[in-house]
């Protein structure tokens, strides 16, 4: 257990963040990625860091993990930028939830009330105030909720910066390794991994961050890993960012303006296996809704569109923690729509586990990797 070498499997934002954290703590770290670093959900993400907007129902464990991660973000980005010499374009732009119905007022009120206790600093906006904050919004918008503490980051740039920070910190980055063909755990002697193209790799500890591909690990682990890919389709309008001042959320889509002038609009979600193409339906509905919410986009076609595979779990929450009965293996996967946001908190948690410290206690067992196992085993207990 005292071993100081770590093998991270999966080169997305979660795997790279864990690698960076482990390297900072003095571990010898290797990251093995089957294709390219940040090539899947991480690189496709819009980079919204918006736990208040995306958790309207109440302060459950997931909200608290998201909030802890949001609060860790400024320092996380500062360190990664310093170590890499690259800009991740983190911006505390604030968010606006725009409502089209008078019936939205009550739920916005409920949300503002409980979120104020968690530092959301949300303010309800009548139509006129909403228009002052976001002049380009449709006149149909009747009310809004402004949350000044939410921020966003360029996900592709953050991934590249993390990759560089890892490299400069002595992390061994093994890309294009192909799939993992075997995992052998040897207790105190560590774990050995065999890959299609990068041969065998060994370390004292292994951290599994394989996102949508995580269920493949079930054959080596004593737990069920019910992660499924959800395709998220996204598009972007060139030179539209200056018209939209905040991140804007609505019932059907969100928009976020990026440093390069593009306005990113997401997301259409569907279940299409591992298919990563965009569809007319998926992008079309974003385009039509964009024209409705922002009349200046009416009739305009997005200049780019793409899709990523989000690793969803059955309860929508990630799996983070050690694997019972297999102390040399830690799991950090299933971050679904929140991988970018949750990376700092996940990395810190995994780092503490590697250091042998208690971790994640504040969340109870909400994210325990084994929580789906009893059901899968046919409820034998």
């Amino acid at each position, binding site marked *: 257990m005292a071993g100081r070498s770590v093998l991270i499997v999966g080169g997305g934002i979660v795997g790279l963040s864990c690698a960076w954290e482990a390297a900072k703590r003095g571990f010898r770290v290797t990251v093995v990625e089957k294709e390219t670093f940040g090539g899947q959900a991480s690189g496709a993400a819009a980079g919204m860091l918006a736990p208040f907007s995306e958790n309207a*129902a*109440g302060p459950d464990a997931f909200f608290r993990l998201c909030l802890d991660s949001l609060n860790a973000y400024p320092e996380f980005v500062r360190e990664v930028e310093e170590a890499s010499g690259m800009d991740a374009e983190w911006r505390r732009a604030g968010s606006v939830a725009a*409502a*089209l*119905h*008078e*019936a*939205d*007022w*009550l*739920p916005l*009120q*409920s949300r503002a*009330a409980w979120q104020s206790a968690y530092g959301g600093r949300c303010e309800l906006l009548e139509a006129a105030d909403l228009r002052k904050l976001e002049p380009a919004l449709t006149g149909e918008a009747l009310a809004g909720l402004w949350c000044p503490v939410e921020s966003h980051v360029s996900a592709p740039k953050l991934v590249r910066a993390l990759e560089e920070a890892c490299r400069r910190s002595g992390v061994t980055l093994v890309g294009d390794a192909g799939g993992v063909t075997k995992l052998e755990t040897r207790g105190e002697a560590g774990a050995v991994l065999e890959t299609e193209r990068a041969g065998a790799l060994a370390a004292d500890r292994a951290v599994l961050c394989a996102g949508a591909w995580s269920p493949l690990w079930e054959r080596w682990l004593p737990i069920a890993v019910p992660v*499924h890919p*959800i395709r998220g389709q996204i598009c972007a309008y060139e030179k539209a960012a200056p018209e939209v001042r905040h991140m804007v959320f609505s*019932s*059907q*889509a969100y928009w976020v303006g990026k440093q390069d002038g593009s306005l990113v609009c997401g997301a*259409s*979600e*569907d*279940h299409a296996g591992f298919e990563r193409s965009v569809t007319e*339906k998926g992008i*079309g*509905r974003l385009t*039509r*809704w964009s024209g*409705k919410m922002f009349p200046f986009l009416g009739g305009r076609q997005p200049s780019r569109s793409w899709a990523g595979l989000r690793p*969803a*779990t*059955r*309860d*929508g*929450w990630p799996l983070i923690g050690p694997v019972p009965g297999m102390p040399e293996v830690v799991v950090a996967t299933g971050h*679904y729509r929140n991988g970018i946001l949750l990376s700092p908190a996940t990395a810190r948690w995994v780092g503490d586990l590697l250091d042998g410290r208690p971790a994640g206690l504040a969340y109870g067992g909400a994210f325990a990797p084994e*929580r*789906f196992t009893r*059901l899968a085993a046919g409820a034998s207990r």
Partner: protein
Amino acid sequence: MAGWEREDPGDLAGREQLAGRDYPADGAKQVVQANRDFLANGAIRIEQADRMDQADLDDLVIGGRRLSSRFFLGTGHFPSPAVLREALDASGAEVITFAVRRVNLDAAGDDSMLQHVEDRGLVYLPNTSGARTADEAVRIARLAREAGLGRWVKIEISADPRTLLPDALETLKATERLVKEGFVALPYTSDDPIVCRRLEEAGASAVMPGGAPIGTGLGILNPYAIGLIAEQARVPVIVDAGIGSAADVAQAMELGAAGVLVNTPVAKSRDPAAMARAMRLALEAGRLSGIAGRIPKKKYASASSDPAGSLFGPPGGAAVLGKAGW
């Protein structure tokens, strides 16, 4: 089978018909006789048992629509579209509810949720969640109908952002108006038998008393009231809100509800599809249990077999027992 078409869920004859047995309408004496006849046959016949299993498969009729499932599912809070579809499959639900304010009224096919279920021939029960007054609820219901979402509406009017408890007075006003406008109105209301009666008189196609505040999972806080509502109602009673687990669903059905509407306890469970299935089974179990009839509660024990050890024979019936071959 006649089922709820009789619109008389509290009445014994209706219940017996639901159980698949054609007992005459006038009561307990004949039921007792029928039970004796049944036992006199000497064995429990398999086909009879099968028919009892199907007691839950009889149809619920609301607004002239025959429904094969008594499970109404809300579509909010699901972790992913794939999980929503799985849970829908597992629940067997034919009616789904969603907040009108949340959906794309310009094009339902573009909607972030409806696009995933539009291939299923489901009955849409748009709800007026977020409405604070009857006026708002009526406007929302009209928007939904104009958008082509059908003429069913779940009237939901809350005046308090913390408890979201229904405002009975506004709900009654909205029900009266929407019924006049030709809607199939299903008001969500408090567990007040008199309010439920007034809603029924106003023309509600079903009444939907809450077990507890929305999303709390506290279960049925006042079983007495829910039982009373189910007993008196001449329209289906759907217990809506407050359900926490399958046990609560079974209880609602035992109390005489015609169905349940749930959302959060399925969507936010660890495994929504498994919970949807559990609740479907509980619904069936609770309904069958209610129809079969619980025994009276007694203070002291009574032995399951008499001192002579026989099951059904008359006192001192060891010889009879031998003869019957049991």
